[in-house]
């Protein structure tokens, strides 16, 4: 059975059991092989805890989704994972190194929901932005060196933006901007790709194209994917594991074990799960 297939008998699986599945598999790996590890992680804004006692790991090759309602702390959790925020207590390890001291950034790609440039008339072309991905630290002679344009071209092709190479960033649609950001993050050939609500503002057709591309990166290139989302349908279709967060972890485990009870606990009201995938049992 494929890891993407889901079965009806998974509905009533115990949450603790599902959490153990992943924690156990991460224990067999060396710390530097684990892309992300949350270890008793807490984070507070002005003494108000936003993230409470998070313990789980994301293992190599996973397509992990972080699911939760608005204001649940999922974006904070992602920022902790990327070292953009420092935990109030506990720790977050990125490939075995505390995230705020991590330096091996070519192993990590990040696709934000929006960029600061989205709102401004940022004058750079798509190629210039994708080229940011070739950056490998301060180099005083960088201005005189030839850029690795082959990697930039390859990344633009993979993300389907090669025809937009000379377009100005501010003239792109939301979907095209997301593809450009994916291309930028692929240039360094990362082991881990973290995305924050990547399909927000994209129409249904664009969403399907986007997910198909990400699926390819995960299955064919072996890139570990972490996708922050509030779209339960997309998570159920695409992810292999899911962490449901509402300040603390409500559920973590393989996505086929995510049931109506866990989702009801997550959102605080009864949730029914209906699978529309004709290949699989409806529930």
């Amino acid at each position, binding site marked *: 059975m494929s890891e993407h297939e889901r079965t009806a008998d998974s509905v009533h699986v115990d949450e603790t059991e599902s959490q153990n599945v992943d924690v156990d598999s991460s224990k067999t790996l060396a710390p530097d092989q684990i892309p992300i590890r949350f270890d008793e992680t807490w984070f507070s804004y002005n003494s108000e805890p936003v993230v409470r006692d998070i313990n789980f790991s994301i293992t190599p090759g996973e397509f992990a989704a972080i699911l939760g309602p608005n204001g649940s702390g999922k974006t904070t959790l992602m920022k902790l994972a990327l*070292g953009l925020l420092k935990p109030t207590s506990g720790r977050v390890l990125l490939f075995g190194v505390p995230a705020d001291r991590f330096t091996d*950034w070519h192993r990590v790609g990040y696709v934000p929901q929006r960029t600061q440039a989205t709102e*401004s008339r940022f*004058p750079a072309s798509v190629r210039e932005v994708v080229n940011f991905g070739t*950056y490998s630290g301060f180099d005083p002679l960088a201005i005189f060196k030839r850029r690795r344009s082959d990697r930039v071209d390859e990344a633009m092709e993979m993300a389907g933006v090669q025809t937009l190479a000379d377009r100005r960033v501010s003239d792109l649609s939301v979907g095209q901007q997301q593809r450009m950001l994916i291309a930028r993050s692929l240039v360094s050939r990362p082991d881990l790709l973290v995305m924050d609500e990547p399909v927000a503002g994209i129409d249904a057709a664009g969403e399907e194209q986007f997910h198909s591309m990400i699926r390819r990166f995960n299955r064919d290139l072996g890139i570990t994917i972490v996708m922050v989302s509030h779209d339960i349908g997309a998570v159920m279709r695409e992810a292999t594991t899911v962490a449901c967060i509402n300040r603390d972890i409500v559920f973590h485990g393989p996505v086929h074990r995510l049931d109506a009870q866990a989702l009801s606990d997550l959102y605080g009201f009864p949730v029914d799960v209906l699978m529309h995938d004709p290949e699989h049992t409806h529930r």
Partner: protein
Amino acid sequence: MPEIFQYEFMIRAILASVLVGATAPAFGVFLVLRRLSLMADTLSHVALAGVAVALLTKTFAPAVALVATTGAAVSIEELRMRRLLPGDAALAVFLYGALAVAVVLISIAEGFNSTLFSYLFGSVLTVSTTDLWWMATLAVVIAVFMALFSSELAQVTFDTDLARINGVRVHLLNLGLAVLTGATITVSMRVVGLLLVGALIVIPVIISLRITGGLARTVFASSAIGVFVAVTGMVIAFYADIAPGGSVVLTAICLLVIVEAVAFTRRLSSRSIHLQIAEMQQHAHAHESHAHGANDDAGDNLSAGTRSHR
């Protein structure tokens, strides 16, 4: 030789205009795109407080203003980074705080109002050889900073978080940008004055964003436009005997209005061309339908005829 070049002070003023016009908008690109235009205004008010201190203590005004803007720039960045105050609030506190300090010092020490006026609105007579050396040194420092950190500046302007995850030392870069912005304002105050220096940092950038693309090209175009408006404004100020600050900024605004008007006319003509094409297509479609309709009618008549023959 034109009259303007017969005066040594005007040659110095025009050289100063070239240096200030080239450097101020080059930094402005990064401030405008990051929506930090208020930073220039804030630091110019801090420089005013520095000038007031210098005039009161009879010290070299640009040096005191430079110390004040550097201290303020570092403090604002620290407050923003440590999230002690939101970005805008930190800028507002420094802007009004510095203005209050300047007002108090001006009221304490009477008698330097005319000198202060030249710092507020610029003056062609006050650019000394020492000022020119300050400006030339700063221009070189800014050019070197921008050449060394071109990629980092572009990345931070695009998105701070993305830049940080790409390994850029965002905080240090922001500090460098803020300190050099303060320094630019300090040396520009002789030419355009403290109250108007923000305009020289921002308006050439808005014009270049309208007429060019590509980050590097935008920086160069902003500098070129800055030099053009600063020199033109200075020449107009000389012949019309008006304050150069106002003249430079009004020149920049005139150029902006012209560029916007040309862009608007182009948009209108492009829309009218599109409408004409759409109308022609509609006509062609209508003709085609009519022709099809006529053929169908002919066909129908033929069928009818055939039927009738039958």
